Each structure stands twice: as structure tokens, then as C-alpha cells.
């Protein structure tokens, strides 16, 4: 996977302009997650995530409190999770669903984050910007920053997101996108106020 992506979230709705000339809207996008807890111990959380960008994969992240262990699996992992219903208990689902645009090597995904269920609880907007021509974040960060600031303003995202800061020279993988989504989903779940960009 040749890409570097990061997400920005906002609670109070960025006033996006209409897609400009040159943006190609390709398809709708969706990333969802369901949280599960171990029934025996409340300390550990299992998150199962899907991304429409990688439709044949399921991502699962186990959070033990002290560390996180990611696993990438085939789609039948979902079936296995269903079999584990005596071990894991489903708690909540949250999803980001919206449009996907392409501009040269950039892919921009704008999703509205909701907690499906009664009343479609709207949580905010998630913006994902992916630069697909480079796998090392450090090599393309300045370029991405310029691109982001081009349409979100210069006081947006001056430093790389926290998650990427320790991984700037590593090869970027789809699980890195998923981990960033998870961070934002967790903030959306907990937050009630306005979210900060960094």
C-alpha cells in the first residue's frame, strides 16, 4: 500500500466548499468499528474495524491498557468474532461514512461520524487526507501540510498527528490509517465538546 494518510476531526463542522475543478469523486467511503469488551475483565477492549478502502480485510486492535496489539485478518474474522460471543461482548458501534475524492496522488475522504442506532446520533466530521505516492511519512509531510493548509487554513495541523510522530520514518501501512481512525473514534465517543486538531 503506497500511501500516507492522516485524519483531522472537527466537532463544529468545517465549512467545506463544493468540490473544485480537478477533484474527482470516485465513490463513497466508510469505516466502521465495533467495540467489544472481554466479559471477564473490563480492562481490555477489542476493537474490530473495517475500511471500505481495504474491503477484503478486517482489522482488530486489542487494547490492554498498557499497550495495543493490532491484527490484520481476512473477512471471515468477523465470523470468528461472532463465534467468540461468550468471550467478547459487543458494546457499541461507530462509523464514519461519506464521500471520497481524488486529486492526482491525493485521496480525500470526508465522513460524518455517527453512532448507528436510535436517532442516528451525529458526532462530527472526519477528514482523511491520503498521499498515495509515498510510504515514508517524513518524506512527504511538508508537502501534505501544504496541501492541507491550502484548504483548511494555515493554523491547521502544524505538526504531524501524535500517532505519526514516532513513526515518521517507518513504512506506512493500512493499519496505521486504522489506528488513527480508532484514536479519533475514541475521542468522538468520549467527547462532548469541540475537538482540537492536534
Amino acid at each position, binding site marked *: 500500500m503506497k500511501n500516507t494518510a492522516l485524519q483531522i476531526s472537527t466537532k463544529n463542522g468545517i465549512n467545506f466548499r463544493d468540490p473544485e475543478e480537478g477533484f474527482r469523486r470516485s465513490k463513497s467511503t466508510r469505516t466502521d468499528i465495533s467495540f467489544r469488551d472481554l466479559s471477564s475483565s473490563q480492562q481490555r477492549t477489542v476493537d474490530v474495524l473495517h475500511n471500505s478502502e481495504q474491503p477484503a480485510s478486517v482489522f482488530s486492535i486489542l487494547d490492554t491498557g498498557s499497550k495495543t496489539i493490532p491484527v490484520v485478518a481476512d473477512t471471515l474474522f468477523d465470523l*470468528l468474532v461472532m463465534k*467468540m460471543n461468550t*468471550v467478547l461482548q459487543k458494546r457499541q458501534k461507530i462509523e464514519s461514512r461519506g464521500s471520497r475524492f481524488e486529486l492526482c496522488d491525493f485521496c480525500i475522504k470526508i465522513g460524518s461520524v455517527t453512532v448507528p442506532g436510535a436517532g442516528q446520533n451525529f458526532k462530527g466530521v472526519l477528514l482523511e487526507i491520503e498521499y498515495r505516492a509515498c510510504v515514508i511519512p517524513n518524506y512527504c509531510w511538508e508537502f501534505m501540510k501544504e496541501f492541507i493548509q491550502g484548504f483548511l487554513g494555515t493554523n491547521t495541523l502544524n505538526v504531524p498527528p501524535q500517532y505519526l510522530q514516532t513513526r515518521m520514518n517507518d513504512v506506512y501501512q493500512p493499519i496505521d490509517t486504522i489506528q488513527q481512525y480508532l484514536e479519533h473514534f475514541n475521542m468522538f465517543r468520549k467527547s462532548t465538546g469541540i475537538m482540537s486538531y492536534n
Partner: protein
Amino acid sequence: MESKEWLHPQAIGSSMDSLGAALKSNIIPNKEYLLQGSIMDSSVEVLLHRLRGLCDNVDTGAETFYDQEMCFSIRGSSSSSSMPQLLYLRVRRALDSTMPQEMPCQLRYTGEPELGTGDKARPTIVRSSVDVAVTPSILEYLTELGARIEFEYVARGYMFRKGRMKITVSKIFKVSREGQGSRPEDLVSQSYLVEMSVLAPSGQDAIGEDMKAFAEQLKPLVHLDKIDYKRLPHTIP
């Protein structure tokens, strides 16, 4: 926020919806049809020769494998009974690659052999099975989830294919820390384990008849049969 058309595109189905649809239309191969047997070391060459002739991969010869399998158990809580339920998951990984620690693993759930009406008449063991390819971090994932290793072993042998059937002839080794189970002192027995299996969606019981017919062709070298482990005498080494 303004409601823009491009913020509300046509719905894209969730992966759970498509899994539900796949389950409903019964296209997921979630049943394993299984026959097992064993053959002494002294006769295994004759069996391999016969399988080479009968199976699909005639020209390429048998495929070899050298795998480690670990069986994990996770304790779940059941609301209906006070006894905690144990869920068994098996992780299998190849040891014959150059970087065995980094190769993907196979995660497998197998249910208890199905018992019920008509089971006696069935030619093979039928049990539910879910096979998933996963990244090698699954070992740490399961351990942190609270899973315990019940047992592990190394299997080294040959794999043949005949249509949908998979036939494996393998030697079972104990896992030794340094030799990774290839030393003669790690051998579990003086025989090879022979397994014939098919993964298919449920309800395709006709495949059992094909398996039985093929097993007949391997007689009297090996008797492939439904083995009920609960009825085997337990010997403690």
C-alpha cells in the same frame, strides 16, 4: 452544517451486511468433512506412491509442509450455565519459510463433531470450521486476550489434492526449543497421521460419499475413518 449532497452519498453496505448476506445464501465454507487414520513408517512410501498416482498433482509431485500448530483455549462465560465455556482456537504457521516469524499465520476455529439425527449414517466427521488468514501478531493478541496454550506440535509431511479433497500425510513432533521438532527424539510415534478433509458450505453432505469412495481406494494401506476421540482409551505418556 449545510446539508450537501456530497456529504450524504448513496449508502455503501457495511461489511457485516455482506457477511450476513453470505451466511444467508450459504456460500461460506464453514463445515469441515474429515476422515482420519494412521500408517506405520515402514509402509508410508507405498501410500505416498499410491497417492501420487491417484491425486491431482501428478506431474508436480506432492507438496511438502512443515508447520507448527498451537492450540489456545479462551474461557468464556455462559449465561445459561455456571460452567465456564472453553473456546478452542488454533494458530498454524509455516516453519519452512526463510522468515517464519514474519509470515502470515492461519487462525482456525473448529467446533465439536456434529452429533444428531442421521449422524451415524454420515460417512465422515462433520464439524464447523472457520479459517482465517491473520498477521503473526495474533500470537501476542491471543495471549493478551487471556488465551492459554493447551498444547502445541510440529507437523511435517506431504499434502495432496483430489478435487476439493485435501489429503495430508504428516509426522507429528513435539516442540523442542532449539531443534523446532525435526529431531528423531521429538517424534511422538512410529507412524504417520493421514487426514482427508474438505471445507464446504453446510448442507453439502454428498461430499462425504466421495470421500468415503476415495478412502476405499487407499485400503488396506490405511483405514480412514470417523475417529471419536472421546471413545479412545486415554494413555498418559
